[in-house]
């Protein structure tokens, strides 16, 4: 069924093998519709505040997910420099550090707003 094609894009690949994907997709859609319309709605919604999870490190409060992001970032930077791929590592690093800066700014603004409100 799956064709031996070289260097297509994924969209072309799926289109060429539509007979394989179509039944899977149909089963998925039908079961989603059945699950959606036959279910009892009895669960209470939870709030998004689950993402606001901090841990204390060096007497400072850090967002847990932010620390994991930084861990991946530093590991990638380290590997990039060890493999002597300097330019791409520096440019990629400058781009990848942007979310961290935004996160710090957001935290800082929130603290300022809190202080102003008091």
């Amino acid at each position, binding site marked *: *069924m*799956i064709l031996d*094609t*070289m*260097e*297509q*894009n*994924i*969209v*072309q*690949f*799926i289109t060429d093998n539509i007979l394989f994907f179509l039944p*899977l*997709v149909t089963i*998925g*859609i039908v079961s*989603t519709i059945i*699950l*959606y319309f036959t*279910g*009892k*709605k009895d*669960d209470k*919604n939870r709030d*998004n*505040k*689950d*993402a*606001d999870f901090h841990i204390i490190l060096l007497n400072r409060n850090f*967002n*847990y*997910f*932010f620390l*994991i*992001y930084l*861990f*991946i*970032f530093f*590991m*990638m930077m*380290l*590997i*990039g420099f*060890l*493999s002597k*791929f300097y*330019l*791409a*590592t520096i*440019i*990629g*690093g400058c*781009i*990848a550090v942007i*979310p961290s800066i*935004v*996160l710090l700014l*957001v*935290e800082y*603004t929130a603290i300022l707003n809190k202080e102003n409100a008091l």
Partner: protein
Amino acid sequence: MIYLKINQNFGEQTQFLFFFIITILIVWLVLVLFSYRRYGWKRTTMYFLPMIIAALFIESAGVASGRYYYPGYLLYLSVVGGGVPLIIVLAWSANLFLFLHIGKYVTLKFYDRHNYLQIILISFLAGIIGVCLDLLEDPIAHHNNWWIWAGSLRGVKFFEVPIINFVGWFYLIFFMSVATILIERSSFSENRKVLISISSISITGIVIFLTHGATLKLFQMIGLA
């Protein structure tokens, strides 16, 4: 076509693959344990399993189409002909969970209304953060042969990585985030949420397929891909 393969030549053709795998494994374990202790196993399944399945299909199709391949890993899985390392599939599930939560955290700082716009904002931020990290990770991965892009691919590249790859990253994380939050916020029982999160991959998959396909056509028209 569907297979599980163990490669006996671990690390062949690659550099620092062990460090990459250890990094991903630590991140995945830390996030899964966090999710399990905070939300329980049903929610953890809802957060991680759909992305594992979606990534398996997309990555397997990507390898089978000949655009890239993964040399030197230990354990390979395939569903549509292309072998995908298990760790790559796990990495995708960790990506979604991580970026989704960072997106939620940042969005809530400036927009705390519980509506569809908030879902779009969270998912958009999750996608952007994912792309930012991939702009660092993908060139290093290609340089160290953790995955190798076919040299004959046309279009604009960022250190040998086609830019359409980054668009793909954004769409995958964005649409999977939207689906995950919609299911998470629905009023169904936890069991049903798990089932819907798995069955709805087909719907999210179609949306990703159509959006990515349209973007690709556009990129081809203007010579970017």
